[in-house]
C-alpha cells in the first residue's frame, strides 16, 4: 500500500459534492469537540478545514500554539535555498522555470557552488536547501550529490528540493550527506494535475506522489510535503497533504515529516490561481496541520510578506527561510552588488542577477529575520541538528528501514476512525 492507494481511497469521499456536503454540515460545536481531542481522525482534520472552523480561528490558534510550544519550544529554525540550476524540461504552468519560458539557463560550476555556499555561510545560516530544475541531462542525481559534497564542510544539514528520484538515486543523495528532502505534490487532484503539467517527467503524478516514500526508504531523515495552495480547492489539497504526512510518519516512524504552505498569489501577467487563498485561509491551513500532527514541522517561505510571516510565528510555524534568493547564483551576486541588485524581490530593480523561479515577498536577511523572531519572544535557531557520528545516522536509519518491511504489514492505514474493527 502506498500513498497512491490512500489517495485513491479518499478521492471519491472528498470529491466536490461530498466535500461540499461535509463542509456545510460541520458546525462550530464540531470544531470545539475536535479541539478537545488528543488524537484526530481524518474526519476531524476535515472539520478543522471547514468554514465553521474559520469562525473559530482564535480557539484553533490557542490550541496550535500550546501544541507547538509543547513539541518544539519557542524556536524557529532558519534555512535558505540555494538554486543550483534552472534548466528544466517541465512546463508547469505556474512556474518561472517553465521550459517554454525564454530565460537564461544556468547551472552552477564547482567554483560557483562553493562561492554561493561561502556567501550563505557568512550570514550564519547552517541549514541549506538545494534546488534544481528538472533536467536530468544537466543537473542529474550525480551532480546534486557532487554539489552536496562540496557544500558539506560548510553546512551540517543539507536538504534537497528537486525532481522525483528513484530509490537508488535517493540512496545516492543520502550517501552524499543529504538528510532531508522536500517534495511538493502541487495538487493531489489526479484529474487536474496533468492539465497543470502538460509536458515533462513531472507529468507522472503517481511517480511524484510516491517520491517521499522512496526517500524515506532510502534513509532521508526529514521529509517535507506541500501542496501549492490555489491550484485546486485548498481545503482538499490541505487535507491530502496532512494525510500524506500522517501516513508517511506512521509507515516510517524514523522520519521527521513536515509541511510547507506555498500559495499562489494573483498578480499581473502570470498564471492565475483557480482558487484564491486568503491570509485567513492560509492561517486556517497552518493551524489545521499543527493540530492534526502536533509533532510535524511547518515551514513558511519568503513567498509570504514580512508582516504576515511575523504574525504566523506563534501559530505553529517551526521553520522559516531567510536571506532568500530564488535565482541561480543569487547569493554570491548579492554579496557583490548589495541588496538593491536583487531582481527576485518584488518591486526591486533589474540589476545583474538571473531570473528567479518565483518572486519573493520577504527580502529580509538572516540577521533581520533573527531579530524579528526574537522580537516575538522566540529563539532563532541556525543549527538545529547535526549527525552525531559521521555517516552514523544514515546507518541507523538504514537499520530502522530494514525493520519496516515494505509489505502490507507495516502501517496499514485505516482511514475511518474510530475504527469499528479496532
Amino acid at each position, binding site marked *: 500500500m502506498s500513498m497512491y492507494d490512500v489517495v485513491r481511497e479518499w478521492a471519491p*469521499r472528498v470529491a466536490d459534492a*461530498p466535500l461540499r*456536503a*461535509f463542509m456545510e454540515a460541520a458546525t462550530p460545536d464540531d470544531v*470545539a*469537540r475536535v479541539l*478537545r*481531542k488528543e*488524537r484526530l481522525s481524518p*474526519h476531524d482534520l*476535515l472539520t478543522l478545514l471547514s468554514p465553521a472552523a474559520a469562525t473559530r*480561528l*482564535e480557539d484553533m*490558534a*490557542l490550541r496550535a*500554539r*500550546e501544541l507547538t*510550544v509543547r513539541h518544539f519550544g519557542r524556536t524557529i529554525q532558519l534555512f535558505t535555498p540555494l538554486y543550483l540550476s534552472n534548466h528544466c524540461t517541465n512546463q508547469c504552468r505556474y512556474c518561472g522555470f517553465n521550459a517554454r519560458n525564454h530565460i537564461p539557463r544556468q547551472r552552477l560550476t564547482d567554483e560557483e557552488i562553493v562561492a554561493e555556499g561561502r556567501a550563505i555561510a557568512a550570514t550564519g545560516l547552517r541549514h541549506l536547501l538545494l534546488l534544481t530544475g528538472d533536467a536530468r541531462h544537466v543537473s542529474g542525481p550525480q551532480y546534486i550529490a557532487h554539489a552536496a559534497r562540496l557544500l558539506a564542510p560548510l553546512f551540517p544539514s543539507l536538504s534537497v528540493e528537486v525532481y522525483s528520484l528513484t530509490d537508488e538515486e535517493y540512496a545516492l543523495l543520502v550517501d552524499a550527506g543529504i538528510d532531508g528532502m522536500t517534495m511538493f505534490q502541487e495538487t493531489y487532484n489526479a484529474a487536474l494535475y496533468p492539465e497543470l503539467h502538460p509536458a515533462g517527467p513531472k507529468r507522472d503524478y503517481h511517480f511524484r506522489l510516491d517520491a517521499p516514500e522512496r526517500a524515506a526508504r532510502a534513509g532521508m531523515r526529514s521529509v517535507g510535503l506541500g501542496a501549492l495552495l490555489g491550484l485546486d480547492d485548498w481545503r482538499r489539497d490541505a487535507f491530502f497533504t496532512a494525510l500524506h504526512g500522517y501516513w508517511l510518519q*506512521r509507515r516510517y*516512524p524514523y522520519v521527521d515529516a513536515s509541511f510547507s504552505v506555498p500559495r499562489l498569489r494573483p498578480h499581473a501577467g502570470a498564471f492565475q490561481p483557480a482558487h484564491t487563498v486568503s*491570509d*485567513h485561509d492560509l*492561517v486556517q491551513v497552518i493551524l489545521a496541520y499543527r493540530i492534526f500532527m502536533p509533532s510535524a514541522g511547518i515551514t513558511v517561505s519568503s513567498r509570504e510578506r514580512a*508582516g*504576515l510571516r511575523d*504574525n504566523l510565528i*506563534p*501559530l505553529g510555524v517551526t521553520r522559516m527561510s531567510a536571506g532568500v534568493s530564488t535565482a541561480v547564483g543569487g547569493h554570491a551576486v548579492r554579496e557583490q552588488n548589495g541588496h538593491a541588485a536583487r531582481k527576485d524581490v518584488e518591486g526591486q530593480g533589474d540589476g545583474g542577477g538571473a531570473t528567479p523561479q518565483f518572486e519573493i515577498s520577504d527580502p529580509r536577511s538572516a540577521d533581520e529575520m533573527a531579530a524579528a523572531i526574537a522580537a516575538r519572544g522566540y529563539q532563532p535557531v541556525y543549527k538545529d541538528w547535526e549527525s552525531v557520528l559521521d555517516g552514523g545516522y544514515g546507518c541507523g536509519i538504514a537499520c530502522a528501514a530494514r*525493520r*519496516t*518491511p515494505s509489505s502490507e*504489514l*507495516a*502501517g*496499514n*492505514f*485505516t482511514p*475511518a476512525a*474510530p*475504527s*469499528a*474493527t*479496532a
Partner: protein
Amino acid sequence: MTHDTHDNDTLVIGGTALTSRLFIGTGKYGTDSLIPDVAGASGSQVITVALRRVDLANPRSNVLAHIPSHMRLLPNTSGARTAEEAVRIARLAQAAGCGNWIKIEVISDSRFLLPDGYATARATETLAKEGFVVLPYMNPDLYVARDLVNAGAAAVMPLGAPIGTNRGLRTAEMIGVLIEEIDLPVIVDAGIGKPSQACEAMEMGAAACLVNTAIATAGNPVAMARAFGEAVRAGRAAYLSGAGPVAAATADGANASSPLTGFLGE
C-alpha cells in the same frame, strides 16, 4: 462520509467477527465447574486455556469439558521460556484440535513474570507464517509492538500491570501510545483488577480486554464476570460516542489579552 456508529460494532480478529470485547480466562478458579456460568454471565466469546503435561499420577478432568461450545478457544503458551518452546506449545495446541488461535506468552523471569519482547516477536513471526492467528502478550513498548506488527501478529496484548496483580492500568500512557500508533487491535491483558479499569481501557480505545484473575478470584466470580461484561460494553460505547467536554487547564496563556489571530482583521 459518516462516522462510525454503535451498530454493527464488531472486533475482527483473524477473520472472525466478535461482538463481545471481553476475553476471559480459565485459570485460578476454585472449581472448573464455575466456568460455564462465568462464561455465560460475561457474554464473552473468547476464552484462554493452557497446555500442560498430564500428571500421570493424578490425571484431572480436561478443562475443555467446561467450556461452552460456541466460544473461541485461545490457547496460551504459558510455561514457554524461549521462542522455540512457545512455537512447540503452539503447534501442540493446534494438533489438539483447538483451532489456530494462539496467545504467545514467553516469560523467563519467574519473579515478575514480565514477557520477553524479543523472543515473543520471533515466535510470532514463525507461527504467523504457519497460518496461526497470533495474539502476543507483551509489555506496552512501541518498538516491540512494531516488531510484532511486522512479524504478522493479529493483535497485540499489552499488560496493564504485572500479571495477576490486579493493580489496574499502570501502563495507561504507554498503552495509549500503542492505540495511537499500531494499526492492530490493542487488547489489554493482565493487571486489570476491577471493572472500572476495564471500562477505562475501553474508553481509551482498547479493542478488548482479557480478564482472568479478577474474575476467578472474586468472591462471586459469576457476578463479577457480569460486571466486567457491562463495564467493557460501557467503555466501548463511551469511546465510540466521543468524549464530552472536560474543563481543560488553561494552557500557556489560553486567555491571551491580545488575540493571536487579531492581525487577520486588520
